[in-house]
């Protein structure tokens, strides 16, 4: 009885993983685009490594304090110069 329950759980787990894999496969283009927008990397392996590195940085280091809403004289214009 116990063994059957365990098998059921395993099947459910495999099914869930398959659904997840299918979702990842189906959405791989947008996932890659998302990872590129976090890491600036083109290669999939670098995107995954970069995403993990970014997550680690976000968890261990405060974002830089840049005071974005301070009034700035001589800001120039944000044109392509």
């Amino acid at each position, binding site marked *: 009885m*116990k063994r059957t329950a*365990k098998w059921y759980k395993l099947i459910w787990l495999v099914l869930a993983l398959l659904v997840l894999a299918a979702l990842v496969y189906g959405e791989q283009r947008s996932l890659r685009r*998302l990872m*590129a*927008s*976090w*890491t*600036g*990397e*083109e290669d999939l392996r670098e995107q995954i490594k*970069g*995403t993990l*590195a*970014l*997550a680690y*940085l*976000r*968890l261990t*280091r405060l*974002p*830089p*304090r*840049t*005071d*974005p*809403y*301070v*009034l*700035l*004289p*001589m*800001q*120039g*214009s*944000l*044109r*392509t*110069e």
Partner: protein
Amino acid sequence: MNTFLEQEVEPAKVERSLQLVAAAGFHWIRQEFPWEDIEISAKGDFWDHRWNKSAWEKYDRIVDLANKYGLEIIARLDNPPAWSRKVGNAPGWTKAPPDDYEDFGDFVYAVVSRYRGRVRYYQIWNEPNIFPEWGDQPPNPEAYVELLKVAYRRAKEADPDCVILAAGLAQTTEMSARNMSDLVYLERMYQAGAKDYFDIMGAMVYGLWTGPYDRRVSPDRTNFARVQLIREIMVRHGDAHKPIWATEVGWNALPKDFAGPAIYGRVSEEQQAAYAVEAYMRAAREWPWMGVMNYWFLRRPSDLEKDQAWYYFRMLEPDFTPLPVYGALSWLAKQPPVVHIGYHQEDHWALHYAGPWQHLRAEEAVLGAYALGREGATLDFYFEGTGLALVLRGPAQLDHLELSIDGRRVSLPRLVRSSEGASAITVAQWLKDGRHRAHLTVAEGELALDGLIVWRQPPFGSLLLVAGIALLASLALVLRQRLYQEERR
């Protein structure tokens, strides 16, 4: 746009270069005025004895032509002549500072006074934190600050309206006898008292091995986002009110068959173009403290350096054939101007005033000026963000105002704090993050506009990333616990 116009043999090519810069819609050039090419043979001697003509002639032409095409110059001052050092031009010392900093001060005074009214922006030195820009000796931020102080003092003596940029520091994590991390160097510059001796911070903003959307910010990483750490040091030292101007920005389109190492990274020419556009867009969207960004570089006069990796940052071939990056940035420069996040003045270039507006100077106004609109005056602009506030002078005048955003009339707050100074009044918030069009009409009376603030609610992307990882970790823990309990049963 970084140019090497002083290296052109034919004056026609100087003009052709500037024509192409202006035609692309670019507005600034960063051009070197090498000390060794102006005060060539001896102190006070501005004669080019080799060609028997004034050493100023070439630079006068560059300034005249830049003025003709409506381009603003950032003059980079460095590169001392051999006579200014005991070691002269010994190998490794050609770019080293002079023995007497006052000699450099005199040169700065000579240049700034000559071009007063025509050139306003000067940058003092280039990458003093790496070899060979400070000679064959350890980088010395304290010595650079001494040089900067002399240059700043003499430049302001020559033209009090001139604007001084600190050197852009090379992005490096190295700490060695010849190179020093830009972050360490800048920290030591501040400790040495640099704060009062520059108006704008210069910064090298290369992407190197990753694209402009690399969001990893860390002192041990050199990438496009690193400039935020420069900004962080400035903020920590009370310099948040100064902008950063990107001295150099670009990606290296190294050919596949290039024999040497890819020391600046490697992208295709198409990627170079796409990255350049994205870089300017990211800076505009996310970094309001970033001002002018100078692309590295327009063009070399010949292809003699094509065996060197840095040659492949170029935008035009020596024969003026444009590479994709030229077209891409030209396209971007011609897009309708947008007000991005930040606190902006009423003279922002994206604001279109129509009707009875007056631009007035007043000491009590923010940065000494404001715009006064009378009945019938209108203001149109695009902004990108999720919220908008108007900075108004004097008693709040919202009753005089009609505002629409994306064509829909905005009901303005009735009760606002009244004061003699400027009041920032929120007129829109929780908008969808994107581009919006604002149309403002002065319905009656007067409206004194002293600026505007655009902001963006923090993005959920990074929150999502952290939450996702936390969720996965929790799931793993729960699963592990379940399996453990099963085993025990």
